[in-house]
């Protein structure tokens, strides 16, 4: 039972990271029907950026993170303007490939700048684990959970209360109607990429403080996003959160209970098996819009 609870809590913490990464992914998909294969590298860049800024400027680490998030915001906007805008109206495969090309460039850039080694963030929270009833939780995990929840809250408020957030929802809902009401669709698309890159950077910082920084490990989270968003529904923001947490818990459970039976690696593959099953049974996911084709 304790093992179960332990797996559950660490699954939820990892799941919150997936939820953040998935949130940015869904944001882009909702606004522009583009799937972003470079999401994982936005994560990595956010985390490595924070590290680099902290090392180069000797700012307090929290400020370095904020600077890195702002940098991601700008980067996302630039990416949209330079790469995605020319692809409007191109076939799906072209749009996917442009994000894959971007991912390759970002990966190469990260490897050129930092190499493939492991790095760590400065320790902000005490290392001694806390005991909550039967559970043993490290403060870093709690901090990660808190940070993720805080950002999810901020984004919920952003979509509900700010003009830009409402405009983004309007564009996602119906581009033409939004345009007719005076919303600048290109601006909103750029904003959705900027925000997606920033959310990804938050997720990257959280993962960096949990597991340390490694370009491959960070970018792989960008692929774990797919099971999360398909489970939650590709165009549903609450779905991204629920799907992310569910996939995080699932992979931890699979790793904990199935690995001893089949000999390792289930943690990596279980989300994708779930992905295939969801696609077969309920392709629009838990909360996605059911698209009905009419001829």
């Amino acid at each position, binding site marked *: 039972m304790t093992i179960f609870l332990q797996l559950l809590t660490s699954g939820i913490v990892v799941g919150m990271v997936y939820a953040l990464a998935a949130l940015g992914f869904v944001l882009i998909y909702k606004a522009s029907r583009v799937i972003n294969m470079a999401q994982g590298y936005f994560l990595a860049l956010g985390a490595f950026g924070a590290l680099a800024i902290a090392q180069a400027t000797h700012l307090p680490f929290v400020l370095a993170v904020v600077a890195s998030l702002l940098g991601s915001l700008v980067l996302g906007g630039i990416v949209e303007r330079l790469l995605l805008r020319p692809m409007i109206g*191109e076939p799906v*495969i072209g749009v996917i490939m442009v994000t894959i*090309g971007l991912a*390759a*460039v970002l990966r190469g850039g*990260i*490897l050129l700048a930092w190499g493939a080694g492991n790095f760590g963030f400065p320790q902000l929270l005490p290392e001694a684990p806390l005991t909550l009833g039967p559970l043993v939780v490290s403060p870093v995990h709690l901090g990660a959970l808190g940070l993720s929840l805080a950002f999810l809250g901020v984004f919920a408020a952003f979509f509900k209360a700010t003009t830009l957030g409402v405009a983004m929802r309007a564009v996602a809902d119906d581009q033409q109607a939004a345009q007719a009401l005076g919303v600048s669709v290109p601006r909103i698309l750029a904003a959705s990429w900027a925000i997606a890159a920033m959310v990804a950077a938050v997720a990257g910082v959280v993962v960096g403080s949990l597991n340390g920084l490694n370009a491959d490990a960070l970018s792989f989270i960008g692929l774990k996003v797919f099971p999360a968003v398909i489970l939650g529904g590709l165009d549903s923001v609450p779905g991204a959160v629920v799907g992310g947490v569910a996939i995080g818990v699932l992979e931890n459970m699979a790793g904990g209970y199935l690995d001893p039976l089949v000999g390792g*690696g289930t943690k990596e593959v279980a989300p*994708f098996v779930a992905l295939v099953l969801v696609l077969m049974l309920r392709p629009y996911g838990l909360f996605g819009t059911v698209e009905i084709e009419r001829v």
Partner: protein
Amino acid sequence: MRRLTFSDCGDYKTRYAQDAALFANDVGRLALGVLLIVWFLIVPAVAGPYLLTVANLTGIAVIGATGLNLLTGYTGQITMGHGAFMGVGAYAAAVLAARVHLPFWTAVPLAGLATAGVGAFFGIPSLRLKGLYLAIATLAAQFILEYAFLHWDWLTRGTSGYLVPPARLGVWSLRGERPFFWLIGASVVLITWLHLNLLRTRMGRAFVAIRDNDRAAASIGIHLFGYKLLAFFLSAFMVGVAGALYAYYTGVVVPGKFTLDLSIDYLAMGIVGGLGTVLGPFYGAAVITVIPEALRALSQALSAVFPDLAAALNALRDVVFGAVIVAFLIFQPEGLADRWRVVRAYFRLWPYTY
């Protein structure tokens, strides 16, 4: 002997057979003949082992890219699992050769068939999914197959992989670059011939109809699911043959080769060459195979000036590779095949452009 015709100053076709002919006039026929003679007789005589290696890797990539082109370029089903499908072909060939002791000439087609079966299985989601969703389903196929390569020890021997016995054709033992150059060249010709003729049949037309508008295709009596599965089957067969040849060519099969990166390489070949063209896979495979080789040569040439360059080669390859894809998508989305078509059309009427 029939008189050769070199140019057609109008459209004088009177029968469908003429319209479906592979060559509109004798220029193409002659050019192809010359090209084949040069490729099979002169190139192996003059090229060194390094050039032959690059040519062999390109040839294998052409076969795989042709498979992808059939599925993605002609049938419009995006696949991100072709790297793993190639792995299935390589493993099937390795198992058939090392464990069942089948001869080379039966192991390769059987490996292709095994891959085709796996490909068709992972094509089943295309019953309900299309576009982005199908791409994500094939991405899942990639990871599930990679997991199988690494962890299904009984079949794949996990991380240790297989040593593939040398290929034998009758009395000849195929060793070294040159025999494989002819073998891979012949396979490329065979697969391209199959590809070309497939497109002229009812099946090929059905594929194109599904790509252009699946609902319209269904309404004129094309069984969507059947043809999509068939496209997955044939496409996986081709990439499986590429994998089997790769297994024999390199002599070892280990899991690390057939990753998502390989799938992405194949997609990039499709984009760079031009999806939905027969010659596209040739251009695409050549460009994507030559990029890392060219970078390596460049880094060696510059090693005196920048000694760190060799260490950064992989990272540099990623940057160049990504930049090439993005540049093609933005400036030349129809690929090199389209550029070649434009150049040819220009010189066709040159110098009397109007």
